[in-house]
């Protein structure tokens, strides 16, 4: 349970930035 909490919390911290990066790359590629 503890590992799950830490894993989820770490994802909450790090993934939005990664997702944003990928979203930007995708939108730029679409634009091109």
């Amino acid at each position, binding site marked *: *349970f*503890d590992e799950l*909490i*830490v894993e989820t*919390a*770490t994802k*909450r*911290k790090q993934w*939005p*930035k990664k997702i944003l990066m990928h979203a930007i790359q995708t939108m730029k590629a679409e634009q091109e």
Partner: protein
Amino acid sequence: MSVNPMAYEAQFFGFTPQTCMLRVYIAFQDYLFEMMLVVESVILKKLVGFPDCKISPFQIRKSTEKFLLFMKDHFDKLFSKMEEVLLQLVLNIPENVLLPEDKVQEQYPYSKEQFQALQDEIRQLQQQYKAEASAGQALRAELEEQKAVQAELEKILQWFDGLENICREHGTGNFKESFAFLTQNSKKLQDVLKEVEEKSKKIK
């Protein structure tokens, strides 16, 4: 009983506060047990130097257990209080605090509908831009065509100008007038010729 997973704290610290306290509790407890064992072994070693004393290892063990039980009881109570304080005051993120990585949540609290509307607007702008870009291309293509067409038409006008210049160079200022004059003169000459022919007939 509900458990507070302290997930937001885990997001900041990288570990759950409860697990941190558990790790500390286990470590402290282990040290306590270890120290008690050391105490017991030291006493037993010292007793070897007193062969006449009637103290058995069993009695020492009983003493150790008694003291350890007492210490463990106080240890648990004190640790419980320490844990409570640390979880409330130190390893805790107050309710009014937003972690830096989540600042956007307060700056841009977009609902599903608002987000969809924003995406739709962007899509529409992209479509409009595409349309404008196509229109621009078409306009520039027409501009090129116009240049070619204008050039051809101007050539034709120049040809007309050229024709009139030739007539002027050969003494015909106004071609229409000279042509009319020529036609008139031809008519006069024809009339004179006719007159001369008739007079000549009369004379004969």
